[in-house]
């Protein structure tokens, strides 16, 4: 939790003024009974009605000043807690953005969301409590103990016995509930995972009529959560009764031993009353402390979860801060003995090939042969486990990540659009894209026709995930988005899979004609899609088994021939 304290740095003013004002209010509160004592001891005793009224006025004044200082404290608390929480959220979002996919997968998006919202809320609440109560409560406890020693040293021993006992209870409960709070968060994460799956799989669940089973799965996780929450409840419910019991037993001791002292003349009756009221004050303050402990226990569990994210180091970092110059001439992209695995076995093994600037490269192979992985290594979505990938004469690991990513424009297999409009989505590729730029990109991506038919054209709203567009429309929009970036390397990762042949064909043709000088990778399972590429790479089980043009590969590469024959009839192949 202490690691996160730096987020409070900018709020030193609030952190001093807030508790100070609260302290002032507490002092005023302590003065009020003294004033009241004066009313009785002086006013009533002397029958002075004017004095009574004057002192009444003083009490109202004290209350008003107390109110003002309390308001200042509350204002400071809300500024500091919400402000530091906001800073923390910004920082966390920024940090998540620097992480690579492997790390994000490790924690999972739903959990990241709860950390960003719930956990930070919990921390904010703790900060507010810190400002409001953390000074006031100990002040009352310490004050009462000091007063007790000045009254009678022997009896104050009772105070010094009771206080550690209460502390022990606090420690006992806290040390047992912290792990449970963590468990609760885990269960909450599980619940949000199931909800998310229920939403994303709504079609399949309904098709199989599995609503009941999903409900059961949810209920089970829900029940576990309720049970754990219940267990924590049983523990924390012990806190206030135990502290109450300790204090009251201390009061019993004070009265009993105080009685003996009075009997021997060492103590006055009135002083027992004072000691009892100080003990009561300690109890009240301790209750506040107990609540604070619960708040901070929850907060420290939350802090640990937030820190867990902060502690994740991005596995892929920029090679340098300054941009690198690209070599002119020579091979533009080089794979030298590249191997790669996601953890277990190798997905790619000893792959070597070179690509010249402006070439169009087709990549084909069976499911799981490593096609996507291969092209993912160029923009460094993953790092090679062995060998070297270079672009423009430089190892991809030596580039600043932002430069490398700008060099590559990638269209993924899964078409993803973001909520906004078609225009705002296209501008992802180029921030200052003009209408002409956008129209041109849409035209190349074969999307212009359907976009033009929309009543609002490029201003048509896009809902989250682009659900208001069909799969093929989404794919073409994502292609347009990539084209508008006008990057020297364009990677189409099986991104035309839902397009029909006519559209696919028109798309390839227009990309070829309009992306002058760009190096294009087309990953596909369709022979027709890659057939006319300048060169075709054929993958099988992570190995490069073919590298050449269609006719040559059809003759020489068995794997390629098989794929061709599975898609086209023999005559169709021959006809080419």
């Amino acid at each position: 939790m202490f690691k996160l304290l730096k987020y409070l740095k900018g709020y030193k003013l609030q952190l001093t003024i807030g508790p100070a004002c609260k302290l002032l209010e507490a002092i005023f509160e302590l003065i009020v009974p003294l004033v009241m004592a004066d009313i009785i001891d002086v006013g009533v005793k002397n029958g002075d009605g004017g004095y009574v009224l004057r002192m009444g006025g003083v009490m109202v004044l004290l209350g008003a000043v107390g109110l003002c200082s309390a308001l200042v404290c509350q204002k400071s608390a809300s500024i500091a807690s919400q402000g530091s929480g906001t800073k923390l959220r910004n920082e966390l979002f920024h940090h998540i953005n620097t992480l690579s996919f492997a790390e994000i997968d490790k924690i999972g998006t739903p959990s990241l969301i709860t950390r960003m919202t719930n956990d930070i809320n919990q921390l904010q609440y703790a900060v507010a409590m810190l400002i409001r109560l953390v000074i006031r409560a100990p002040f009352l406890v310490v004050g009462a103990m000091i007063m007790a020693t000045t009254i009678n040293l022997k009896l104050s021993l009772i105070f010094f016995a009771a206080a550690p006992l209460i502390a022990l209870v606090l420690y006992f409960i806290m040390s047992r509930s912290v792990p449970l709070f963590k468990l609760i968060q885990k269960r909450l994460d599980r619940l949000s995972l199931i909800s998310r799956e229920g939403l994303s799989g709504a079609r399949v669940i309904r098709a199989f009529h599995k609503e009941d089973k999903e409900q059961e799965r949810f209920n089970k996780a829900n029940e576990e959560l309720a049970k754990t929450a219940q267990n924590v409840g049983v523990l924390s419910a012990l806190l206030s009764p135990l502290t109450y019991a300790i204090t009251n037993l201390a009061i019993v001791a004070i009265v009993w031993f105080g009685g003996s002292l009075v009997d021997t003349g060492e103590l006055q009756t009135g002083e027992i009353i004072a000691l009892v009221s100080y003990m009561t004050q300690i109890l009240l303050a301790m209750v506040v402390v107990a609540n604070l402990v619960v708040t901070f226990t929850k907060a420290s569990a939350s802090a640990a979860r937030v820190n867990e994210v902060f502690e994740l180091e991005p596995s892929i970092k920029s090679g340098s801060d300054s941009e690198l110059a690209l070599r002119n001439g020579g091979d533009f992209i080089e794979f030298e003995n590249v191997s790669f695995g996601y953890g277990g076995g190798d997905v790619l093994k000893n792959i070597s090939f070179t690509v010249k600037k402006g070439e169009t490269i087709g990549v084909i192979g069976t499911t799981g042969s490593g096609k996507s992985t291969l092209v993912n290594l160029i923009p460094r979505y993953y790092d090679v486990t062995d060998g070297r990938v270079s672009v423009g004469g430089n190892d991809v690991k030596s580039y600043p990540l932002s430069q490398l990513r700008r060099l590559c424009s990638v269209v993924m297999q899964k078409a993803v659009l973001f909520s906004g409009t078609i225009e705002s989505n296209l501008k992802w590729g180029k921030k200052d894209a003009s209408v002409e730029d956008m129209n041109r990109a849409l035209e190349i991506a074969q999307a212009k026709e359907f976009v033009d038919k929309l009543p609002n054209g490029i201003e048509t709203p896009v809902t989250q995930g682009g659900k208001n567009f069909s799969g093929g429309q989404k794919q073409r929009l994502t292609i347009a988005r990539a084209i508008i970036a006008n990057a020297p390397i364009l990677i189409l990762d099986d991104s035309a899979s839902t397009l029909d042949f006519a559209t696919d064909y028109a798309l390839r043709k227009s990309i070829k004609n309009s992306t002058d000088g760009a190096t294009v990778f087309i990953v596909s399972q369709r022979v027709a899609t890659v057939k006319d590429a300048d060169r075709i790479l054929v993958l099988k089980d992570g190995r490069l088994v073919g590298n050449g043009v269609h006719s040559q590969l059809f003759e020489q590469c068995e794997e390629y021939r098989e794929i061709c024959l599975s898609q086209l009839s023999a005559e169709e192949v021959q006809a080419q």
Partner: protein
Amino acid sequence: MNKGVVKRILIYTAKYKRYLVGAFVFAIVSVCLTLLGPVLVGYAIDYIIGKGNVDFGSVGRILVGLIFSTAGVALFQWLMSLCINRVSYYTVRDMRIDAYKKLSNVPLSYIDTNAHGDIISRIINDIDAVGDGLLQGVTQLFSGVITIVGTLGFMVAINFKIALVVVFVTPLSLFVAAGIAKLSAKMFSKQQRTQGEISGFVEEMIGNQKVVSSFSMEEQNEQEFRRINDELYVCGKNAQFASSLANPSTRFVNGIVYAAVGVIGALSAIAGGLSVGQISCFLTYANQYTKPFNEVTGVISQIQTAIAGGARLFELMDSPDKTPDSENAKPLENVKGNIEFNNVSFSYTADRPLIKDFNLKVKQGQRVAIVGPTGCGKTTLINLLMRFYDVCSGEIKIDGQPVQSFTTDSIRQSFGMVLQESWLFNGTVRENIAYGKEDATDEEIIAAAKAAYAHSFIMHLPNGYDTVITEDGGNLSQGQNQLLCIARVMLSNPPMLILDEATSSIDTLTEQRVQLAFNKMMQGKTSFVVAHRLSTIKEADIILVMKDGNVIEQGKHAELLAEGGFYAELYNSQFAKS
């Protein structure tokens, strides 16, 4: 609106009346014993008069009584907390169950058009807020009310007149609190809304981080995030401050009550109507009486967050349900597979008509292939067939009966469906395959996996069929995901089949083999296949060529080629040279 929300939250707690009553009874006992404590101490002190004048016998007896009452307070306070814990956690649990149930009852369009992050935030965060509010609110309310009633009784017993002063002045603090609550309620719901917006944004951007980073959009996203976050800061700060006004304000009012009691008491004492001891007793109780008002207002912000959360939850619960099955709907049984579309029109949004006057007759056992440019309504046709969406006009018939006369579930179960976007859940490979047939034996599961050509890659997974699939099938390739979905349908072996680009992520070699298995399975069954690979379409009984929501050509492969229309153009384009 708030009243409605509170009432509905309370309805949820009604089921746990026993615990609520228990909590109430325990609260009465523990509060009464708590009030008794100072009285006992006072009595004990009365026996300690001065040097050599202490009645140890009486003091001892009273102190033993105090020990018992202390034990009682501790015990009953604990029991009360347990009861309230139970009520709030069970209520939270029930609300979650209902909220999740609601997700099965909303029309699919609700799920398609609302941000999932926002819906999840309602189920997780908002319900949590309701639970916290209940926990704190009920605890303070119970012990507060009882303390008020108890001390009021003592005060009336001592001096009726001054008790009246206290009773009339204290509600002032309630008015103040209510005013402040009203002010902050609005801010709280705004805060909650912004929080939902943040969740939605994070889900979208972090969930698709690969795309985000490929466009180097991190910085711009951070700016947008900062904007929403700043908004949250402003409304969070205001809401927190407004609600925290309540506590000091009521404390101020209480201070005035205290002063008033003191002044009036002192003046009556001067006039000779009250003893000094009674004044001090009164002051103690006046404090006692106003304290619970403080405590209640102290939890006001939590209660308001709870109400705002409840409002968002009930908003989800109140969204219209999907059209229920008609009362005399019967299950679809012994399906033959004759399907008819008569003058069907449909659009997702009123301003964008999609399918217009669509007609189609499919006979038992026929294979229907649907082809056409993207966005022409192929997938929509399947949404209608599965009744994920309902037609705007016209009707669809199965075996001569309108679909409305059958239960929706039985219709869906009669179709095996494999979609382009495969969906697997966080469970083992085995559980995912057996999704449609839970009682399947291992042999059946393996046979289905083999038929879908998934067996060999499954055996290569670290734990074979017991490998746990991470969220959204993250540890498998898209093609592998799809093969598992196909195995799932192979296993459930339904009377009709829908394949919506089912093999789009699978390589053609595997696809060919899977296709053979499909063919075998589909013998004599009606099937609908949306595909772009014309090689898989050639053998279809009917090819529907769709464009702009209409069927423009219909027939067998050879016929359509001979026609030389749009289909011929499509077919030939795949061999065109670029």
